[in-house]
């Protein structure tokens, strides 16, 4: 009998498969109907889902609430915009994002991981605010207007070439990237390293007694999450053609946290499903009423009180039961 964590991981695989299939179907239908908006909205949901994924790695697995993850996302976006305006290469932008994520994650991590809990949350919050302010006031980065004019690029996939202006095509590219990020995260979290992170979340005082150094564990987790966030951020300017300082503001970080909570903390899949859910909700509610803040706020509070395990808390146990039944002869 596989242990609970592995069953959970396998349930995740089923859910990923479902997402993938749904995504492919969506792209096919969208392309057939010549749709632009919904495909791009879904692409945006996936990109911000990547940011939520990075929040979940820290919150759901390492037990650290980051209120400033948008910092890495936003800086990844800015870097990507700058790279693309100079050299319109998809792979170069992604690589730059990866590198930047490592560096920024290291710097941010060294500052932040010395503390835990609410102090960690406040440090990440403050760090994001400060850097956001600096970017907001930096002329060469477009100051408060941001950077416009990121060109439409052609993504060379070896066999075929996809334009970032193609709604269905780019959606599939982003779907692939985000699922790849998810796969890497899921794999790493299913290794002993990942189990240690989960142990940290459960009780971080005991872990040193088992012979592991918590500081380096937390730093690795932080850098990893930062890379995920940065790489997700590099995709944004390809979709929308611009970046603005609001990508680093607390509203972006806060949305990511809401996404993770609604989707289900500590499930990875919850971040992606949650992002889709929240994007759809926001779009619908925003068109009905201008008081969407209040409604999202109430929904969020309701989720915190009544649905602590989020959407995945409802869906995953059902999937797990299905798998267990299949496992038994």
């Amino acid at each position, binding site marked *: 009998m596989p242990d609970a964590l592995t069953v959970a991981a396998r349930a995740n695989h089923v859910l990923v498969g479902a997402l993938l299939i749904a995504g492919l179907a969506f792209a096919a239908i969208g392309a057939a109907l010549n749709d632009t908006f919904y495909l791009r909205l879904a692409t945006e949901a996936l990109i911000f889902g990547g940011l939520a994924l990075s929040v979940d790695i820290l919150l759901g697995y390492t037990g650290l609430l980051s209120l400033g993850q948008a910092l890495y996302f936003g800086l990844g976006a800015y870097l990507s915009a700058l790279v693309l305006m100079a050299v319109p290469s998809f792979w170069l932008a992604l690589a730059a994002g990866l590198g930047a994520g490592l560096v920024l994650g290291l710097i941010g991590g060294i500052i932040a991981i010395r503390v835990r809990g*609410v102090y960690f949350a406040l440090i990440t919050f403050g*760090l994001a605010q400060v850097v956001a302010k600096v970017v907001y006031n930096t002329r060469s980065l477009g100051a408060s207007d941001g950077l416009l004019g990121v060109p439409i690029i052609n993504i060379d996939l070896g066999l075929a070439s996809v334009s970032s202006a193609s709604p269905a095509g780019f959606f599939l590219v982003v779907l692939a990237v985000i699922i790849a990020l998810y796969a890497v995260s899921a794999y790493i979290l299913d290794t002993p390293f990942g189990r240690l992170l989960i142990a940290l979340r459960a009780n971080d005082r005991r872990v040193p007694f088992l012979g592991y150094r918590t500081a380096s564990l937390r730093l690795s987790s932080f850098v990893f999450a930062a890379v995920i966030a940065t790489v997700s951020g590099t995709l944004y300017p390809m979709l929308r053609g611009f970046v603005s300082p609001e990508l680093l503001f607390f509203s972006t970080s806060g949305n990511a946290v809401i996404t993770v909570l609604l989707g289900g903390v500590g499930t990875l899949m919850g971040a992606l499903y949650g992002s889709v859910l929240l994007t759809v909700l926001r779009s619908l509610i925003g068109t009905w009423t201008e008081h969407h*803040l*209040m409604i999202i706020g109430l929904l969020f509070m309701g989720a915190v009180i009544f649905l602590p395990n989020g959407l995945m808390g409802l869906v995953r146990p059902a999937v797990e039961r299905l798998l267990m039944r299949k496992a038994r002869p």
Partner: protein
Amino acid sequence: MAEVLDYVQFVLAPQVVTGLAFGVAVILVAIGLTIIFGLLDVINMSHGEFYAFGAFAALALGWLGLPFWLLLILVPLAMLPVGYAVERMLIQRVFNRPDRHVTTLLLTFGLGLVLEDAFRLGFGPNPYRPDTPIPGAVELFGIFLPNYRLFLIVVGAVVIAAVALVVYRTRLGAMVRAAAFDRNMAASLGVPVAWVYAGAFAFGISLAGFAGVLLAPIYSVFPTMGRDFILMAFTVVIVGGMGSIAGAVVAGLFLTQVQAIAALYISPVWTDPIVFGIMVVMLMVRPQGLFGRLGYA
């Protein structure tokens, strides 16, 4: 020499004094936050919105004709039952979960969003400003001081002193500190812990509301005003020590003075990073802040 004196009189001293008025305001907000954290272990992300709540309540009651002096007492009192209700109905529901820090933070974050939109719904998006209750100014040693700001500093200081007195010198305060130090022991000694918790939360937000009423004439009232103070208040609480009132006072004065004087020499945009930097250094060097926690102070 005359130049130095001139500088002190016309630039430095006024800066210090106005920094003081701002500092008193920040301390009032931070004390509420630190009591709530020190006692309930709850990070109240909606604290800024309760500050706004007080201001809006004062605005509404002021339109009904009530004088400012009455409002200063009435509004905080009226906010006590509100805070009590919030604590019992919302916070208690997630209080006993293992990840309390995170869930209460998120819950109060959601509450903040709701409150902000509620203000906009009820009062519209535009700013209001109640008239300054004590117009005019005095000139002390050549330093120009508006009367209302002096009043603010004095009243704020009195309230802060009163709070400190209650917490450290009275039986009620002893019960609060006992409940913070060891909840179960305090309960077994007859301290009504549930009441103390709810009461402390109510008191904390009512202090924020009091600050809102006090500051409305000089900082004006509008739906997003809660965001004004939140970063500074949290920084003060961290630097001073979560749960320590003395810490909130010292850190509040220190940080606002640093900000005020720094604004004289460097571009104002950099004062926030400096304040944040102090918070980071404090967290790295002495995470419990200057004075540690309520129960242990």
